């Protein structure tokens, strides 16, 4: 390659001739510490951390809501909370856990881990990345405002079936805005997810280290890519549906308005065209994490890597063709029901393939039973159970009895807690040493695993039976003569055991963050690139952009030390010749633009359209300033002797 050309085209090359001083409004902040540094951050690791902390906070909120539900159902005819409060609790429990806990926790790993796995120094669009996070926070706030205002929380279920969302059926009093907050909150979260996903797709396609071909990508990165595609393809469907509800509620359109000939079934189709891929949006990242942890702790490569990757793609693809299995009871007729039954069963094949490959990975390995491995194995078991009950209601006639009963509740908690949450908890354990340079105590880690595992099964296994015994979901009370009493009591006790397990997990994590045992680089004998860097990772991630020679890139590096060292020295020299490592400056405008969305949507919920326009003005101001603020950026020279401070340039 023509070296001189590369050199001259390099962004910010004019480091020795500083640009003319720009006015403060157009220059970019570069705080390294303090609150401003967090508000303006564009560092993927910091954004990942923010996602993680917010997601874990909302995970606790959602968990508290779940405990309220379980307390109410502990005994028949209970009056612990009112019908209204109960309905708000189950609506927000689901909405919170899906949109504010599992999705952002996955996003946290996408942000933090994925760029490290592909040997990148950041995502493709760092400011957009920050914007996605601040939008997520704005959406989360809008969804939860109901805790503090008279309208209360949304109460029409996380699926928001029309016409329950119409003004006629959702307003307890004049000006009840709980449903509006749900509609606006989800729209903002949708924007956030789509922006984040586009960013990940561009990053994975374009910013892989040299030699990191697609078929060498770590499986977690693959799953990030699939998830991102699922998000950008499925969120438009719910966005359309939400906009239509918003129009119905505010401007008198008749999309779902029954009295005007609107079709509530339309909502269900739009919602589940989003909602079913959403299920895979929640589980594919988890499968990615498991596909990292099992090989690492078995000390051998993933069994059947191409098939695992391919089955992930097939799951994602088929996931768009099965949405109506959520609607078997809506009277679709025989042909549609049969088609969706068969398509749904077909998904079991690629899912089963993954399980076989994980077992194949364990086979002949040296399994070291550390806490992440415990959670990962727990995942495989629990996900298998959830998969089997999934096959049961793929069969439409059986589903006619199971739909909207506690059997379904048991099923999807097996795939969402036993699946997604177990994997995410495993991921936190697994990458904690990398993120914070400290390691969780094995005793406390395993203890929390066993308590969570026991509590989870005690809660949800019996619920299969109460569902088949005819107990419907979303019931704030039940009678004592239905044969449901003992199971509900057991489930409530189990839920509290699960709660204690989660509490132990969190306390241990917080303790470890401050006081945990310090750990060396690469504590688990990792296989992928993120383990090749010091912990916690430096701002610029890689001193030298790695050159990838094999699928498990770092494993290869560790077993070909001499060759890699020579190569690294050469690459470092090249980097220096380019003027060092270019890093982006911070920016205020992601957070400002997102705050405009927050303000605007709150006013909109209150039917204060002037205020809503005000919010939009902030959004446009932020976006405009975003595009005209200085290019920013500075250079680091980590490999130059004794100098890792930056040449600033704004």
């Amino acid at each position, binding site marked *: 390659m023509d070296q001189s050309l590369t050199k001259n085209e390099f962004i910010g090359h004019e480091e020795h001739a500083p640009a003319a001083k720009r006015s403060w409004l157009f220059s970019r902040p570069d705080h390294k510490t303090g609150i401003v540094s967090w508000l303006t951050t564009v560092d993927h690791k910091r954004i990942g951390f923010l996602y993680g902390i917010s997601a874990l906070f909302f995970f606790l909120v959602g968990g508290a809501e779940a405990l309220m539900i379980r307390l109410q159902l502990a005994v028949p005819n209970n009056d612990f909370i009112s019908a209204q409060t109960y309905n708000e609790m189950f609506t927000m429990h689901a909405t919170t856990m899906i949109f504010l806990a599992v999705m952002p926790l996955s996003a946290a790993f996408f942000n933090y881990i994925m760029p490290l796995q592909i040997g990148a120094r950041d995502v493709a669009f760092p400011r957009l990345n920050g914007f996605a996070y601040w939008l997520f926070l704005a959406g989360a706030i809008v969804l939860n405002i109901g805790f503090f205002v008279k309208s209360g929380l949304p109460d029409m279920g996380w699926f928001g079936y029309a016409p329950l969302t119409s003004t006629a059926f959702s307003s307890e009093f004049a000006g009840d805005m709980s449903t509006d907050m749900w509609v606006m909150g989800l729209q903002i979260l949708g924007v956030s997810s789509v922006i984040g996903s586009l960013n990940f797709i561009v990053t994975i396609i374009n910013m892989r280290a040299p030699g990191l071909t697609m078929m060498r990508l770590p499986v977690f990165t693959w799953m990030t890519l699939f998830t991102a595609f699922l998000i950008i393809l499925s969120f438009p469907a719910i966005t359309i549906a939400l906009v239509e509800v918003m129009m119905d509620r505010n401007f008198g359109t008749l999309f779902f308005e*029954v009295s005007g000939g609107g079709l509530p079934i339309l909502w269900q189709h739009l919602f589940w065209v989003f909602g079913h891929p959403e299920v895979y949006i929640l589980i594919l990242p988890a499968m990615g994490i498991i596909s990292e942890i099992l090989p690492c702790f078995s000390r051998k490569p993933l069994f*059947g*890597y191409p098939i695992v990757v391919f089955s992930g793609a097939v799951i994602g693809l088929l996931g768009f063709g099965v949405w109506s299995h959520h609607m078997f009871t809506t009277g679709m007729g025989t042909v549609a029901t049969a088609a969706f039954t068969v398509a749904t069963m077909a998904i079991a094949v690629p899912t089963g393939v993954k399980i*076989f490959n994980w077992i194949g990975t364990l086979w002949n390995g*040296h399994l070291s039973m550390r806490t992440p491995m415990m959670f990962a194995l727990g995942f495989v078991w629990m996900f*298998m159970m959830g998969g089997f009950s999934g*096959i*049961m209601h*793929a069969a439409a006639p059986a589903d006619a*009895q199971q739909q909207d009963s506690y059997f379904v509740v048991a099923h999807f908690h097996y795939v969402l807690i036993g699946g997604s949450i177990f994997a995410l908890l495993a991921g936190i354990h697994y990458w904690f040493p990398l993120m914070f340079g400290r390691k969780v105590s094995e005793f406390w880690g395993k203890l929390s695993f066993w308590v969570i595992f026991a509590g989870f099964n005690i809660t949800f296994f019996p619920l299969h039976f109460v569902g088949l015994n005819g107990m419907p979901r979303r019931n704030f009370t039940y009678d004592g003569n239905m044969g449901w009493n003992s199971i509900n009591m057991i489930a409530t006790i189990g839920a509290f055991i699960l709660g204690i397990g989660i509490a132990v997990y969190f306390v241990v994590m917080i303790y470890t963050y401050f006081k945990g045992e310090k750990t060396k680089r690469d504590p688990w004998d990792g296989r992928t690139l993120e383990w090749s860097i010091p912990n916690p990772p430096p701002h610029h991630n890689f001193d030298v952009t790695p050159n990838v020679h094999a699928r498990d890139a770092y494993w290869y590096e560790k077993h070909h030390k001499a060759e890699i060292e020579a190569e690294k020295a050469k690459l470092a020299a090249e980097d220096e010749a380019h003027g060092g490592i270019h890093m982006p400056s911070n920016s205020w405008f992601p957070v400002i633009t997102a705050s405009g969305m927050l303000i605007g949507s709150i006013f909109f919920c209150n039917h204060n359209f002037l205020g809503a326009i005000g919010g939009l003005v902030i959004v446009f101001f932020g976006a405009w300033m975003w595009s005209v603020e200085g290019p920013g950026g500075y250079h680091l020279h980590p490999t130059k002797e004794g100098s890792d401070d930056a040449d600033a340039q704004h």
Partner: protein
Amino acid sequence: MLLVALIPVVCGGWLSGPQSTFDTKGPVAETQLDVFYVTLWVTVAIFAVVGSVLAYATIKFKARNEADEHAEPPPQGHGNPLIELSLIVVSILALVIIAVPTLKAIWYTYEVPEELMEDTYEVTAIGHQWWFKFQYEDEMVPQPFGGEAPLVTANELVIPAGRPVKVNLRTVDVIHSFWVPKLAGKVDMMPNRGNHLWMLADEPGYFWGQCAEYCGESHAVMRFRVIALAKDEFNAWLENQKSPARTVAASADAQITTAFADYGAFAVNQPGWTPEFDADPLGSWNALQAPNADEDPALIAAGRQAFIENRCAGCHTVRGHDGIGNIGPDLTRIGSRSTIAAGLLENTPKNLYRWITEPDRVKPGNFMAHTRIVAPPGMITMPGYTMRDPATGDRNPTDGDIEITPEEGHALVAYLHSLK
């Protein structure tokens, strides 16, 4: 561990409640259960095999100690395409085993089979927030202002046993779902869409059902019953239903002789059922068809008066007596129903008194009375049924307060219970 978990299931009666999907009483539910069993046995078999391999691998290949963990890594094998392919084929075969009976059952459960079509009895179930109206399309009854309309009842669907019943499913407001687990799986009542299901009760019986699609605040207490009767009994029941309301004659100077029971305060979500009823539900239902022994004609007359004065007739109909309202359930034969408040409470004087005097606490958000207002002593206040503001759709009590004295409450109970 799984086997241990199954002990309470079998011994503790975890699967034998009134809404059990295992205790099927008709061919539709039975077909659905058969499909479930196919899925169950196939998945249990797969679980047994895959689970054993997973357990074996976990135990066999576990590192025994620290030294073992730091030993030379195992061979870095990448997989085996032949194993992969054969596993895929086996999984597909397992799914075919499930798919065949499933597809057959989809067609069978959707429509009454050809050979039974002749014998099918048709009714329409209409979901309301939060109760069910049942309309017998073929049984026309004269209406107060002339003309005829189908016979309607509420919350208790009486069907002939041994005959297929096609239930047309409609709704007047949001989505509801019609579910009688022992007879048939659920089908939703969708606005602007004509759904249906069919079911067949092999024997006469009394079945529990419930709305199975979240439909708003009181979804949990939107329940109903299905009563299947032998042919003759069903016809007799129909004849009785079609005649106008029963009137208990009272002489003009009759005095109220009944002493009022003091029911005390009612708790929120207080149970409304008794084990005596559950012991023989069909027998208990039959017993309710005959007039009460201790009727007090004067009290009943006072109740009828209160029914008019308190605007009950605005929403309810007692065909042959008063009222042309159809917002609320038809009350022409309410005394003969075994439950009130949409299958929530057994139809006893105490429960009916509770339902009339504090409907909002029995069924939160219902339209008979939206919010409770603290009443002056000696007075029970109902703030009036709710009307929707046509402009904003808001639920507002618009019609002024309805005030009922305890005496009126007792009289209403006596009157309604005389309507057999």
